[in-house]
C-alpha cells in the first residue's frame, strides 16, 4: 500500500503539467484548479506516507521501498525505485506543505480574477488594468498575469521534479529530478523573458548550476563504476562503504572522499554555496512564488538533502570523536565561510528579496557546515525548519511587494521600486496579517529563543559544533547568526515600522486570502516545528516533548548518533547572538529614512565583494577573448576553414578526374546505359504479351493448360 502511494506521489503534478500545456492552457481557472488539485493529491499522499511512517517502530530499519528493473546492463539490471526512510519522510513532509502553500499563494499573487491589462504582453510582468466602478470612477488595479496557465504548468513540473528527487532510492532518478528542477528554475526565473535582466538571470542560474551538475554527474559515474549500483541501500552497505573508504583515489583522497567531494560540488551549485553562489540573488527576477519555491522549499533544499543523503559515503571511515576527514573539512569550511560571507552581504542589501536570498545562502551554509562537522541530524533539522520559515519569509515579502505594487498603481508613480525597502515603512498597520507572519518568520530566522523553530535547530548546530570541539566553526557560525538576527531586524524595521516613506507605501493594502492563508499556515509551522527537536537535557523545556526528530532522523544510519552533551556555552551564545542581533538591528534602523543614513552601505558589501565582476574578469572576458581571437579568427578562419577549403579543392579535382575518366565512359555508358538498353529492349519486346487484353491472357493460360494436359497424358500418364 505504502509502496504504491510512494510510486504515485510524483505523478499528479506531472499529469497536471501535461494537461495544462496540452489541453487546458486556454482556461486559467481550469489550469489552476488542475495544478492545485494535483498538488493537493500529492500532499495527501505525502501525509499518508508520513503518518504511516510515524507508526512504524524503528522506521530506520523498516523503511518503505520498492524497486523495479529498468535498464538492462548486460547481465544485471539498473534498478530504479522509491524509498521513504526517516530522512526523506521528514523532507517530504515539508515539501508537501510548502508546495501546496505556494501553489495556493500563486493564485492570488498572479491576480487571478482581475481584469486583463490592455498593455500586458506575455513575457513581461502585468502592468495593471483600468477598471471603472458603477460611479464611473477609474481605478488602477492589478491585472492578471498573461501567462497564468503556463506558470502553473511550470511549477507543476517543478513539483514533479522535487517529489521525484525525494522519493528516489537511487542516484539516477535523484539526478533526473535534480535536472528537471534545473530546467524549471531556468524557465521560471526567465518567466518574464521580456525583461533582459530576467533573461540574463535565467542563463546565469542555469550555467552556474550546470558547473556543479557536471561534477555531480562525474561523481555518479564514479560511484557506478566502483560499486556497480546507484541504489543508496547498495552503496551504504557497510562492506561497500569500507571498501570505498579504504581505496585511495586522487589527490590523497579516498574513493569515498573523492566521490563525496564531486557530489558536494553539485550541491555547491544547487544550494548556491561559495564560490557558486552568484546565481541565487539574481534569480530573484522570477515571480515571488518562484523565489519561495526555488530558494526556500525545494531546489536549494535539494542540494542539502542530497549531501545529507550521501553523508554515509562522505563520512565513510569517520566516526564520532575522530578528527574530520579531508572532504568533511572542506565541506565544513565552505559551509561556515558561506554562512558568514553571505550574512555580511545581506546586511547591506536594500531589495527585500535580495536580503532574503543572501540570507538563504547563509542559512544553507549553516546546514553545510553542520554536515561538515558530522552533525547531519542537526543539518536535516535546520533544513526542515529553514524551509518553513524561509518559504514564509519569501511569500511574506511577495505579499509586501504585492501590497506595494497596489500602492504604486494607486498613486500612478511608476518610478517607485516596490521591492526597495527604503520605499516602504509603516506597513505594520496597512498589512497586519503579512506583518505578523513576517515577524514570526523573521524571528524564526533570527533564532528568537524558545518560541521559534529557528532557535532550536540553530541551537542544535551550535551545540554540536561546540560539543564536538569544532571551535572555529562554532565562532564563525555565531558571528553569522548575529549578523542574521541583525539584518533580519533591519529588514523588519525598514519595512514595517516607522512611518511610510513614500506615497505608495501609504496606499499599500492587505492582499487577498489566497495569499494570506498560506502565510498563516506556514507561520504555524515556523513556530511549532521546532518543538519536535528540543534536546532532552535542555533546562526547563527538555523532556516536555521527547527529542523526536533526533531519534527519528537519526535512525537513518545504522548507528544512531548520540546526542551531544549539554553545555551552557552554546545556549548562551545562541541566546546572545539572536537577541543582540535583533536589538541592535532595531536600534540602528528605527530612525533610518534613506540609504544615505545607513552606515553599512559600504561599497564592497553592496557590490557583494565584487564576485560578479571577478567572475566576469576571470572567466567571461577571457572566454570571450578566446572565442573571438583564438577560436574564431585563428582556429575557425585559418586552421579549420583552410583545411576545409583544401579538402574541398582536392575533392573537386579528384571528383572531376573520376567523372571524366571513369564515370562517364565506363560506368555510365557501358554499365548504366548498357544495362538500361538491354532491359528496355527486352521489355519492349516482351510487352507485347502484356497487352492488357484479358482474352489474350485467357487464351494463353488455356493453351498452356491444354499443352500440359497433353504432355501429362502422353508422356507421364503413359497410357
Amino acid at each position, binding site marked *: 500500500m505504502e509502496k504504491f502511494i510512494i510510486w504515485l506521489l510524483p505523478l499528479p503534478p506531472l499529469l497536471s503539467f501535461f494537461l495544462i500545456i496540452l489541453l487546458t492552457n486556454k482556461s486559467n481557472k481550469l489550469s489552476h484548479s488542475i495544478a492545485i488539485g494535483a498538488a493537493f493529491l500529492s500532499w495527501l499522499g505525502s501525509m499518508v506516507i508520513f503518518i504511516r511512517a510515524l507508526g512504524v517502530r524503528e522506521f530506520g530499519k523498516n523503511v518503505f521501498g520498492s524497486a523495479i528493473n529498468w535498464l538492462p546492463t548486460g547481465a544485471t539490471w539498473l534498478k530504479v525505485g522509491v524509498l521513504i526512510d526517516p530522512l526523506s519522510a521528514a523532507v517530504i513532509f515539508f515539501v508537501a506543505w510548502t508546495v501546496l502553500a505556494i501553489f495556493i499563494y500563486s493564485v492570488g499573487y498572479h491576480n487571478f480574477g482581475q481584469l486583463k491589462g490592455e498593455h500586458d504582453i506575455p513575457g513581461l510582468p502585468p502592468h495593471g488594468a483600468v477598471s471603472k466602478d458603477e460611479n464611473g470612477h477609474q481605478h488602477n488595479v492589478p491585472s492578471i498575469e498573461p501567462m497564468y496557465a503556463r506558470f502553473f504548468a511550470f511549477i507543476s513540473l517543478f513539483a514533479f521534479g522535487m517529489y521525484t528527487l525525494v522519493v528516489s532510492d537511487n542516484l539516477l532518478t535523484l539526478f533526473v529530478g535534480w535536472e528537471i528542477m534545473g530546467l524549471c528554475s531556468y524557465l521560471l526565473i526567465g518567466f518574464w523573458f521580456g525583461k533582459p535582466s530576467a533573461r540574463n538571470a535565467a542563463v546565469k542560474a542555469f550555467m552556474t548550476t550546470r558547473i556543479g551538475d557536471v561534477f555531480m554527474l562525474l561523481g555518479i559515474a564514479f560511484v557506478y563504476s566502483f560499486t556497480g549500483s546507484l541504489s543508496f541501500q547498495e552503496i551504504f552497505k557497510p562492506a561497500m562503504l569500507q571498501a570505498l573508504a579504504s581505496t585511495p583515489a586522487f589527490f590523497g583522497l579516498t574513493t569515498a572522499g573523492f566521490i563525496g567531494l564531486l557530489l558536494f560540488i553539485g550541491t555547491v551549485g544547487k544550494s548556491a554555496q561559495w564560490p557558486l553562489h552568484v546565481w541565487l540573488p539574481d534569480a530573484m527576477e522570477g515571480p515571488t512564488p518562484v523565489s519561495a519555491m526555488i530558494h526556500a522549499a525545494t531546489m536549494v533544499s535539494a542540494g542539502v538533502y542530497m549531501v545529507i543523503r550521501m553523508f554515509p559515503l562522505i563520512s565513510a571511515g569517520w566516526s564520532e570523536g575522530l578528527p574530520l576527514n579531508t572532504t568533511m573539512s572542506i565541506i565544513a569550511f565552505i559551509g561556515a565561510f558561506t554562512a558568514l560571507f553571505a550574512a555580511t552581504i545581506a546586511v547591506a542589501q536594500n531589495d527585500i528579496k535580495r536580503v532574503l536570498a543572501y540570507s538563504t545562502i547563509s542559512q544553507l551554509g549553516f546546514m553545510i557546515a553542520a554536515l561538515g562537522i558530522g552533525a547531519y541530524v542537526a543539518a536535516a533539522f535546520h533544513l526542515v525548519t529553514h524551509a518553513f520559515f524561509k518559504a514564509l519569509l519569501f511569500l511574506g515579502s511577495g505579499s509586501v511587494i504585492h501590497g506595494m505594487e497596489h500602492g504604486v498603481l494607486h498613486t500612478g508613480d511608476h518610478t517607485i521600486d516596490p521591492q526597495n525597502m527604503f520605499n516602504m515603512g509603516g506597513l505594520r498597520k496597512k498589512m497586519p496579517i503579512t506583518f505578523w507572519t513576517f515577524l514570526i518568520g523573521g524571528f524564526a530566522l533570527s533564532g528568537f529563543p524558545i518560541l521559534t523553530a529557528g532557535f532550536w535547530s540553530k541551537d542544535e548546530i551550535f551545540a554540536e559544533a561546540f560539543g564536538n570541539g569544532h571551535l572555529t566553526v562554532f565562532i564563525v557560525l555565531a558571528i553569522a547568526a548575529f549578523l542574521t538576527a541583525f539584518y533580519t531586524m533591519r529588514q523588519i524595521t525598514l519595512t514595517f515600522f516607522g512611518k511610510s516613506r513614500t506615497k505608495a507605501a501609504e496606499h499599500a493594502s492587505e492582499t487577498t486570502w489566497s495569499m494570506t492563508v498560506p502565510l498563516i499556515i506556514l507561520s504555524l509551522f515556523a513556530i511549532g516545528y521546532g518543538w519536535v527537536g528540543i534536546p532532552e537535557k535542555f533546562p526547563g523545556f527538555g523532556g516536555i516533548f521527547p527529542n523526536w526528530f533526533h531519534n527519528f532522523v537519526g535512525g537513518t544510519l545504522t548507528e544512531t548518533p548520540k546526542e551531544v552533551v549539554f553545555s551552557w556555552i552554546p545556549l548562551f551564545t545562541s541566546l546572545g547572538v539572536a537577541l543582540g542581533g535583533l536589538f541592535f538591528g532595531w536600534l540602528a534602523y528605527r530612525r533610518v529614512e534613506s540609504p544615505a543614513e545607513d552606515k553599512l552601505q559600504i561599497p564592497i558589501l553592496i557590490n557583494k565583494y565584487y564576485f560578479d565582476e571577478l567572475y566576469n574578469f576571470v572567466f567571461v572576458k577571457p572566454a570571450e577573448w578566446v572565442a573571438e581571437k583564438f577560436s574564431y579568427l585563428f582556429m575557425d578562419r585559418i586552421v579549420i576553414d583552410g583545411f576545409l577549403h583544401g579538402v574541398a579543392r582536392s575533392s573537386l579535382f579528384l571528383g572531376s578526374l573520376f567523372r571524366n575518366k571513369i564515370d562517364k565512359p565506363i560506368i555510365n555508358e557501358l554499365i548504366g546505359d548498357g544495362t538500361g538498353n538491354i532491359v528496355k529492349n527486352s521489355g519492349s519486346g516482351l510487352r507485347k504479351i502484356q*497487352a492488357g*487484353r484479358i482474352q489474350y491472357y*485467357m487464351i494463353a493460360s*488455356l493453351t498452356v493448360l491444354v499443352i500440359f494436359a497433353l504432355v501429362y497424358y502422353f508422356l507421364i500418364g503413359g497410357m
Partner: protein
Amino acid sequence: MNIPLSWYLILAASLFCVGLFGVLSRKNAIAILLGIELMLNAVNINLVAFWRYLDPIQMAGQVFAVIVFAVAAAEVAVGLALIISVYRRRNTVVADDIDLMKW
C-alpha cells in the same frame, strides 16, 4: 430415369466449351459475359446431375447450384455496371479497347 449420367456430363461439357469459345472469341464485353453465363450454367448442370445421380439425399449439389446462382447474379450485376461505367467514360464496350493498364 434411363438416361446415363454421362449424357448430362457431355452436354454440360459441350455447353461449357461453347461458352468458353464465346468468352475467348467475342469482342464485345457484354458478349463475353454472356459466354460466362453459359459456362456457369454448364457447371450448374453438372452439379445438379451429380446430385441426382450420386446422392439425392444429401443436398450438396443443389446447395452449390444455388450458390452459383448467387455468384452469377452478383457477377452480372457488377460486371454490367462496370461495362456501363466504362462505356460512359470511354465510349466503348470492346474488351480489347479497355486496355489503359497495358504496358
